[in-house]
């Protein structure tokens, strides 16, 4: 629940066109963090579901959110197949889970959110901005 709150607070700094890379192992709470971002932009958190299978989910609130999951991609070039650049170079905000899979194709000016387990009830969330 607090991961959702953290996402919501983080979202206040986001601008249309921003790209957010969400890093963290399976079960760390990346999708929950996205639920918080969605809530900030007037999108119901329950609308946010894992895009692992469908690859990209689009949510429309006060901005357009692209929830992208690269987990199933085998090589960076697969990103072209799903049309990744159409989303990340748009006016929407792109939130990318498992960005490690497409790292070479991502621009430099992304925001990075790293979520890790401290204990069962605690997460560490590190936020930094690439320059």
């Amino acid at each position: 629940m607090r991961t959702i709150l953290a996402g919501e607070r983080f979202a206040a700094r986001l601008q249309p066109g921003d790209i957010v890379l969400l890093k963290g192992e399976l079960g760390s709470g990346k999708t929950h963090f996205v639920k918080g971002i969605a809530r900030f932009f007037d999108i119901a958190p329950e609308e946010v579901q894992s895009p692992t299978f469908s690859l990209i989910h689009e949510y429309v609130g006060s901005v357009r959110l692209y929830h992208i999951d690269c987990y199933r991609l085998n090589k960076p070039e697969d990103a072209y197949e799903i049309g990744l650049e159409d989303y990340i170079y748009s006016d929407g905000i792109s939130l990318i889970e498992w960005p490690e899979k497409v790292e070479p194709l991502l621009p430099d000016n992304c925001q990075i959110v790293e979520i890790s387990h401290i204990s069962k009830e605690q997460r560490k969330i590190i936020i930094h901005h690439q320059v």
Partner: protein
Amino acid sequence: MMILGIESSCDETAAAVYSDGRLLSSVIASQADHVAFGGIVPELASRAHERVIWHTVAQAMEKAGVTEDNVDAIAVTEGPGLMGSLLVGLCFAKGLAIQWNKPIVGVNHIDAHIYATYIDEMPEMPFVSLVVSGGHTQIFYVERPLQHKLMGQTRDDAAGEAFDKIGKLLGLEYPAGPEIDRLARTGDDSFYDFPRAMMKKGLDFSFSGLKTSVLYYLQDIPKLEQEKFLKEHMADLCASISAAITDVLIHKMRQAIRSTGVKCAIIAGGVSANSMLREKAHKMAGELGVSLHIPHPVYCTDNAAMIAVTGWFKMKEGMTDDLHLKPYARHKWEKVGIGG
């Protein structure tokens, strides 16, 4: 009435021909003869759709032994899915519709999973349908053809995704769903009591907590013992995890059937091939006195036969579209509560 169906919403490019209760052909590019397609078709199709769609449709027509003169309408997936992928199928279908001068029918991909059952059977309406796959977990109440009300859905991971990712945590290869199912058959499903989430909270689902609880369960095993433990108890863990997932699915389905009073239930989507789910579903159907229908496994994963048969239903209802048909990435269904 003969329908050509075209599907390109996610990974698969597919085409099929269906005519009044009879499926004449069903071609899926990734499973077809690769030579005819000029090489291996990538599993992750998406933009690769445009490279194979022509061959896929041509092959479906050829296998059915029909020509454009026999076809009455073209049904095509309009959403939900990847915009780039959907556009390929939609534009191709529109091109054919113009050239052949035939009506076009837009089909919702999730609706199509439900109607896949009608390829082989004619379940009676109204019914309750659980659509459960790697990307979806939803319960619908279907009163009459194409009148669908969403009763519940997942708030995070789909059930199939839970199987796939939990298997990965156990060291199995992704996607691990079918392997977990195989291993679970010889395991003890009461070995460990993994959480059944949201059992008392309406008909929505949540599976990400189960994923996390398996992660913690494994972390609590000392590193040195982990390998030996997993080797000894892999089947038990697979059975216990399958039990947790299928218990929730069946519990919610039972509630949906009871609250609507239907006499018929359908389980569709890739996870409907899971043997524990099937076993529990048949038992539940017997207890509630409802008839249970599950499509043939080949029509449970993405295919175009289900698009063609849904298009056939839409044509029967007079629901055709025109060339303004647009793809959509997401779809919001009218939602109903239970008991009301």
